[in-house]
């Protein structure tokens, strides 16, 4: 987290920002529509709309659309927005282009805590997962941040990413240990463990709605402070910013969002990494816009990946976490190869 004093890049013109927002909304709407329409059983658009408008008229179609595809779309919307914004906030708080809830081990911490909660305390249901996910995410974030802080001379962008990767690897190996010794738990969790939207109900969505919305609102409000923080700790402090407070609020927002996403859909990798980088090309350096656009584009990516998983493995499906890793890991590698990361 070595500070990087740079001249602030020119902000994007307002017309482009508005255009980008409209474009993002359109793409997101299209992703939602595909998510409701596409599946192992093809249902015509008219029938789907009719089933949504008149619940009860189409027994079987209604069950598929209202009981299955609609809930997973809503969960995908919430989890996607949470992951994208968590990534954008983490990249702002750490000034590290490689930051993301999965790269820095936060998702792995939340997942381990949920698995321990189920195995040791017998919890069940998303509402019970949620507090465990928050605690696990917070502990993992503190651990990585602690290593970065005590490191001699501070950690570079690369060092922080490495510390996160180690924490993530260690925590998931413990998760594996718990699952290996408990076959029924493995049966219950093996889809959740790779990140999945299949089989979600509206109850899951309802549980995480409040924390995700709170996290999104606070994140957008934090945007201006992150813009100041981007100038470097010293300059931000001399401009009157309470740097520690901004970092702490950013950390809490990250934990809230990543924890909710993991509790709802399992540890989904790389969405939070790839999306902020993609939208920054349109939004420019302003964090308020990066965060807003990430909240729109990330769910579009997640739902798109979910639909892709249903199409490529037809009539079965590929879990969404697998698709996002296959798409997101090349983005991570491209970032590492680019000149955006110092110290390589």
């Amino acid at each position, binding site marked *: 987290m070595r500070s990087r004093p740079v001249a602030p890049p020119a902000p994007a013109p307002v017309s482009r920002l508005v255009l980008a927002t409209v474009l993002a909304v359109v793409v997101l709407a299209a992703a939602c529509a595909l998510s409701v329409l596409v599946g192992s059983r093809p249902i015509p658009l008219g029938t789907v709309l009719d089933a949504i408008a008149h619940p009860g008229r189409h027994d079987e179609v209604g069950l598929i659309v209202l009981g299955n595809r609609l809930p997973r779309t809503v969960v995908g919307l919430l989890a996607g927005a949470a992951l994208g914004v968590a990534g954008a906030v983490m990249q702002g708080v750490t000034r590290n282009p490689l930051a993301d809830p999965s790269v820095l081990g936060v998702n792995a911490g939340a997942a381990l805590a949920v698995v321990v909660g189920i195995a040791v305390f017998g919890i069940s249901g998303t509402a019970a997962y949620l507090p465990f996910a928050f605690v696990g995410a917070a502990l993992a974030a503190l651990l990585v941040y602690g290593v970065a802080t005590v490191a001699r001379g501070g950690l570079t962008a690369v060092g922080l990413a490495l510390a996160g990767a180690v924490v993530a690897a260690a925590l998931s190996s413990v998760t594996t240990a718990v699952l*290996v010794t408990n076959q029924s738990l493995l049966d219950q969790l093996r889809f959740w463990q*790779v990140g999945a939207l299949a089989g979600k109900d509206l109850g899951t969505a309802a549980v995480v709605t409040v924390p995700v919305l709170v996290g999104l609102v606070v994140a957008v409000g934090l945007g201006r402070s992150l813009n100041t923080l981007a100038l470097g700790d010293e300059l931000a402090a001399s401009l009157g910013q309470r740097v520690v407070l901004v970092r702490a609020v950013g950390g809490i927002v990250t934990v809230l969002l990543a924890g909710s996403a993991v509790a709802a859909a399992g540890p989904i990798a790389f969405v939070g990494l790839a999306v902020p980088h993609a939208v920054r090309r349109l939004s420019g350096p302003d964090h308020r816009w990066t965060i807003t656009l990430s909240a729109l584009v990330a769910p579009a990516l997640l739902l798109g990946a979910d639909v892709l998983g249903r199409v490529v493995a037809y009539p079965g499906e590929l879990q969404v976490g697998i698709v996002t890793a*296959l798409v997101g890991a090349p983005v991570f590698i491209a970032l590492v190869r680019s000149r955006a990361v110092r110290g*390589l």
Partner: protein
Amino acid sequence: MTRPTQPAPGTHGRPHVAAVRRELGVLAAVVGVLVVLVLVGLGVGEIPLSPLQVAAALVGHGDTVSDFVIGQLRGPRVLAAVLVGASLGVAGAIVQSVVRNPIASPDVIGVTAGASAAGLGAIVLLGVSGVALFGVVLIGGVVVAVLIAALAWRRGITGNRVVLVGIGVSAMALSAVGWLLTSGSVQQAGTALLWLSGSLNAVDRSVVGALLIGTVVLVGAALVQAPRLTVLTLGDDVAASLGLRPDRAKVLLLLTAVLLTAGAVATAGPVAFVALTAAPTARRLVGAGRVALGPAAAVGAVVTLGADLLGQFALPGVTLPVGVVTGAVGAPYLLWLLARGR
């Protein structure tokens, strides 16, 4: 890692002799610890055997019970642990020295993950086992290693870039693993997960035989190349001026390391962090910036066998996979390495 005070190879001064003597001393001490662990591993269990009974069985004068327990049950497992650990230790030492980065071991840069994805695919999809599995895992390991090297290449493969590229590649390999975990039955998923966590619970005797031959050949090849590795740690320019072709030497060394890693993965799955921790520990014991392949092999064997024994007997009623134990020990060590800075 590379210290400027290191004597150039071929300088047969007194410091060199002292360093060799110290390396041999460390090697003897670590091997001594290993022998004790082997005796414990062969003697402890549901049917306890005294060290004398173990020794008698080893030299062919044991009774029926101890012959069976050691020859069929505990012997293969202990031997596999020693061979896997030694392979990983040497592989880690080679990669860390060639890439000149103490964090760049096969398990961190994704070679292990790629090899295990290949192995798991072979197990779940093709039902391959035994020696054939070796072939699949070897090919998978080499392919992934070439991929990582190609993606990380920019005027050579040094520095942290290879580590981060490896993290990305291993994420992709692990997502393939995730698909295998969710597409099969629960029983298959259980087998897959056990293999993935790095386990010696179901070691195949025929595999141990193949591993023994492979490890002896490859560790021998590594030891033959050790002087070149020492020269390479001085940097490419110095190496070239000393008459070495750095790129060719590096490719041969890395190939040796990848084959060693793949052999270990084919036997036990990806045992976490042994390749990472064994070599730095050995270097710390030996001192004077030596590459220390022999001590790295011995430390790797001690760590793996010790972790497997802990996994078997630390918690009553639960047999933890060896990889979980080494992961729990290795992760704090790596974090400490990172925090200390370089």
